[in-house]
């Protein structure tokens, strides 16, 4: 805050100032450069506190020693930390640990591999069974379809036979006259009567 000044204002002030002191002046503060000095501070000259040389020497020595010791301690602790870190990262123990871990890892990976193999075997068996099941089903479906086909063929044959049988009774051009004669000779009565109880009476009067 206070700065050493030189120049014309210095001479006047120096007369009043103590001999060994250094002149100081305020540099920054609340007021700007255009503000006048306060009335109570017009002739004021600020001086730093006086220094006893003997005391200064003694203090300097003691402080120097103290700071040296403190710095040494700090550096020592820092070095201890660094050494610990180094030991952990790249020490003999660390190598052992790394090797141990790698071995354990290998063991666990082998275990995992065995498990996978076991699952693989189970899966192969299961897939095989599923395939067989699918084959069997397909086979059954094919059989069924063939059976159905055969049944249809049989039905058709039966119908053909029936038709052949019926064909004997068909009316052809040769039979025509004969059949007409027969029909006229044997009149057939299709009428029937039924009462409320459901009794069917086929014998009725032919007209």
């Amino acid at each position, binding site marked *: 805050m206070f700065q050493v000044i030189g120049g014309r204002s210095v001479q006047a002030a120096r007369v009043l100032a103590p001999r060994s002191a250094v002149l100081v002046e305020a540099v920054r503060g609340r007021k700007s450069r255009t503000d006048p000095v306060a009335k109570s501070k017009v002739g004021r000259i600020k001086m730093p506190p006086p220094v006893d040389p003997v005391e200064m020497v003694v203090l300097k020595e003691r402080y120097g020693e103290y700071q040296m010791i403190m710095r040494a301690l700090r550096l020592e602790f820092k070095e201890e930390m660094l050494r610990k870190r180094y030991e952990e990262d790249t020490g003999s123990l660390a190598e052992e640990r790394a090797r141990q871990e790698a071995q354990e890892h290998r063991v*666990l*990976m082998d275990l*995992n591999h065995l498990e996978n193999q076991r*699952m*693989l075997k189970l899966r192969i068996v299961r897939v095989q069974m599923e395939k067989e099941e699918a084959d069997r089903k397909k086979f059954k479906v094919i059989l069924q379809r063939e059976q159905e086909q055969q049944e249809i063929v049989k039905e058709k044959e039966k119908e053909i036979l029936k038709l052949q049988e019926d064909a004997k009774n068909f009316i052809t051009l040769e039979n025509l006259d004969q059949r007409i004669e027969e029909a006229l000779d044997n009149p057939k009565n299709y009428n029937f009567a039924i009462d409320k109880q459901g009794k069917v009476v086929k014998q009725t009067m032919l007209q």
Partner: protein
Amino acid sequence: MPMKGRFPIRRTLEYLQKGDIVFKNRVKIMTVNYNTHGELSEGARKFVFFNLPQIQYKNQWVQVMMFKNMTPSPFLKFYLDDGEQVLVDVEGRDHKHISDHVRKILGKTEEVLQAEAQAKMQESNPANFGPRKYCLRECICEVDGQVPCPGTTALPKEMTGKYRTKMAAAQE
């Protein structure tokens, strides 16, 4: 609406902290391939549904990816630091079984976890006073039952240094 989703317990802190799979430092990526339908993927689906939030909570720096309906059989794949890939087949397995197996092959063991917890506790000694970042308290005035901070409440006259010096000077 307090609850979201089918099993909102999966979102509670208590549930997440109960997860016991902490991966080794080498595991970087975890991939789960499973199917959305089918009896064989049931275990994998349950694993993803129940155990994955716990795993991700405990291993926040491991990338976990899910692939659905890409392969006929479900599996887990772990990608380690040195490029090694670990395949775990989970077809037809129970989710509990899967998580036990994963913990066995790639998780930190109980003793390692405990050692780590111990080391962490040792680093942060609650008896230390210092910046908030490293210690619990900064000054003894923060502790209950101790003299309150003279910055907020004035000390009784008898405890102040100037009074004491005055008394000492008066006595002499």
